[in-house]
């Protein structure tokens, strides 16, 4: 029987960061709790928040469950996380600039060439290009799990367009509105400057040709997209236009947006559409979402695209295992945050180990996301395991395996009252002229008892994430 680290209780005693929350819950009768929960839901629905985490898909009008019990980090816990996350974001960007340039890390034999250059996310169209400030991935979402008081592991990196940050902001807003007393009693680091930091980060990577205050826009696939709410939410808080592909066009060496006062030049595009759809002239010719000619403008320095096309080659699950190596190679440092030990089924020895221990492992598709196409050994039936075994054997290169992590739990409001549920964490690291991290992130919680899958499409919810001030 695995024991799980409970972030609030150490045996019978309450861990320091949660000290005041014990009294708070003790003083909250069940009917008030239900009332508050209903209030929160009504607020979310009225604002029109709907939500989907990157790649999860699903009904665009679905509400993700919100749990009122906050998840708390001490200042020193966060300090370590912050250093580790920033270090990782720097290494990932150094890697991207390198593999689209001379690829020294490949030449040095630290990463197999095939893994990089035959990767689907490797974008030949940006090879030889160094984006402004040498940044490919401007918003790095790093998924982290905790297994003990000081044990944190990186589960995966998201270098393209990690979503969910609106939930970090809205959860906080909701908590402050419903429980102002908690914020008086606890000294909680604010997260509401995130949109401003994001805007500054984006503006800081404007192309050299931009000789005035940069015009930043968010490019969305449109209002049918499941994350549209987040796109419009961020545009609003940053005070920038939310555009669709058809609102932009290329003329001369620049990108322009159609406004009621005529064309207006655009300098930085925070795109929330996939590489393949950015420019039908360069990528998928059938894309109706993109802007024809955009890539030529980008490569000739007329506009910046965030994150840069091709950034995905750094967050592939097969590349993931090499991130600690990147930290050592580019930064000459030891990684502060550990990877989860990973077996690559493509390697014969690893495959043997994986097939022999399927019942204890989590197996994932290399390119999959959203908790689909994965096997959680200890939670699966014999038949499911056997079926997966065949899938792995048929295409070993497509799978990696990891030990079943003893994900930490935090107290969560459930029907019967309060019970521990497993959580993970996605902080959003912003990389531009500077590297910045707002103290907080998206905590996802597996609401089903015993479940280790936190994805919203699989019964996950979200919580407010607190970092206590010193």
């Amino acid at each position, binding site marked *: 029987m695995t024991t799980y680290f409970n972030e609030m209780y150490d045996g019978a005693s309450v861990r320091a960061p949660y000290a005041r929350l014990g009294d708070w819950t003790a003083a909250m009768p069940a009917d008030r709790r239900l009332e508050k929960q209903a209030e929160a839901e009504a607020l979310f629905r009225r604002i029109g928040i709907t939500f989907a985490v990157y790649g999860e898909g699903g009904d665009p009008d679905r509400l993700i469950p919100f749990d009122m019990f906050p998840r708390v980090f001490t200042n020193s816990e966060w300090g370590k996380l912050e250093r580790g996350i920033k270090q990782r974001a720097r290494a990932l960007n150094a890697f991207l600039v390198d593999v689209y340039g001379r690829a020294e890390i490949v030449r040095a034999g630290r990463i197999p060439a095939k893994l990089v250059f035959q990767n689907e996310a490797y974008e030949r169209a940006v090879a030889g290009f160094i984006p402004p400030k040498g940044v490919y991935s401007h918003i790095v979402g790093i998924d982290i799990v905790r297994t003990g008081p000081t044990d944190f592991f990186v589960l995966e990196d998201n270098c393209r367009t990690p979503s969910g940050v609106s939930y970090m902001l809205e959860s906080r807003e909701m908590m402050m509105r419903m429980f102002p007393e908690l914020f008086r009693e606890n000294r909680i680091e604010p997260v509401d400057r995130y949109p401003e930091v994001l805007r500054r980060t984006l503006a800081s990577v404007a192309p050299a040709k931009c000789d005035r205050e940069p015009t930043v826009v968010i490019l969305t696939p449109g209002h049918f997209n499941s994350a549209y709410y987040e796109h419009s939410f961020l545009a609003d808080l940053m005070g920038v236009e939310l555009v669709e592909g*058809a609102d932009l066009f290329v003329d001369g060496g620049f990108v322009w947006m*159609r406004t009621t006062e005529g064309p207006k030049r655009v300098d930085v595009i925070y795109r929330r559409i996939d590489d393949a759809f950015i420019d039908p002239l360069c990528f998928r010719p059938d894309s109706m979402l993109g802007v024809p000619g955009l890539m030529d403008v980008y490569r000739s320095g007329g506009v910046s695209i965030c994150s840069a096309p091709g950034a995905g080659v750094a967050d592939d699950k097969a590349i993931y295992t090499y991130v600690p190596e990147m930290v050592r190679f580019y930064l000459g440092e030891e990684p502060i945050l550990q990877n989860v030990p990973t077996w690559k089924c493509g390697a014969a020895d690893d495959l043997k180990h994986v097939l022999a221990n399927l019942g204890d492992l989590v197996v994932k598709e290399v390119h999959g996301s959203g908790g689909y196409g994965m096997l959680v050994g200890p939670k699966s039936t014999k038949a499911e395991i056997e079926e997966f075994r065949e899938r792995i054997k048929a295409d070993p290169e497509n799978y990696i395996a990891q030990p079943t992590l003893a994900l930490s739990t935090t107290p969560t409001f459930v029907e019967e009252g309060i019970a521990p549920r497993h959580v993970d964490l996605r902080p959003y690291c912003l990389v531009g002229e500077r590297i910045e991290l707002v103290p907080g992130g998206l905590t996802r919680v597996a609401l089903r008892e015993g479940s280790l899958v936190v994805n919203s499409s699989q019964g996950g919810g979200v919580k407010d994430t607190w970092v206590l001030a010193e």
Partner: protein
Amino acid sequence: MLSRTADNLYWIARYMERAETAARLLEVGARISLLPSASGYRSDWDSLLRASGNGAGYTEKYGVPDQKNIESWFFFDRDNPNSVASCITAARENGRIVRTALTTQVWDALNTAFQELRQIEARRGVQELSRLTDWVMRHSAMVRGSIDATLLRNDGYNFLNIGYYLERGDSTARLMDVKYYVLLPQVDFVGSGLDNDQWSMLLRALGSHRAFHWAYGGEITAAKIAHFLILNPQSPRALITCVAGMANHMGRLAKYYGRETPAQAAAQALLSEIERQTVETIFDEGLHEFLLRFVGISARLGAIIHDSYLSGDM
């Protein structure tokens, strides 16, 4: 502002106003059917369908007009792009797209209308017609009111108002055209009870019944009604009021942007044209002909606004 955003705002207004028109048409129809001289109602349904601008769609789906089908066509039917349900859904969708250009109050008003519409659709057939039309009027007023009370007076506000006035002028002209024949001057001499009923029904449909009596008093005559609905700037739905409103907001846009477009000139030309008219010149031209001409000019004006601001090609 993005051209597409302006376009979305403009269409929020047009769809909300159009939902109201559908409800008013429905109200007229229902009242006609309650008249004792029920023999004529078939042709009245026909003229309602004509006025809605999409009679062919109805005929194709249902064939001959009957009250139940007409109600469902004007209120619930998604196949009818001008039905209350279609318009409110479209207005809310346009609102969702430009959520950030709206205040919470405006979004709330739009979203609440849409959420309640879904409930009404679920309980379809249970509600009385008059409650449905009241419901539409109430929500249309809430959206309009929240726009007036909370929105910044910027370019977006002007595009919303231009949408409202353009659609409303068009709607008044079409509603009058349904009954233009009872407004022909010679009918004054007949003075039959039916005609009087029809006139007051027209006023009721435009929500102007009481306003008319306050403004004019005495007998209802064709000339008074035509004046009230076309030329009286006090009347909120009069064509002149709509055109003046449009010209006003167009002028504010030009000032805001420091740039005139063909849209300003076109709105101003239409305003001068209406200001020159009298009841006599209108009846000389023929009321039906005049209204048709107005609907045509108004559509062209819409196209010019599109080219000047909303298409993004300039």
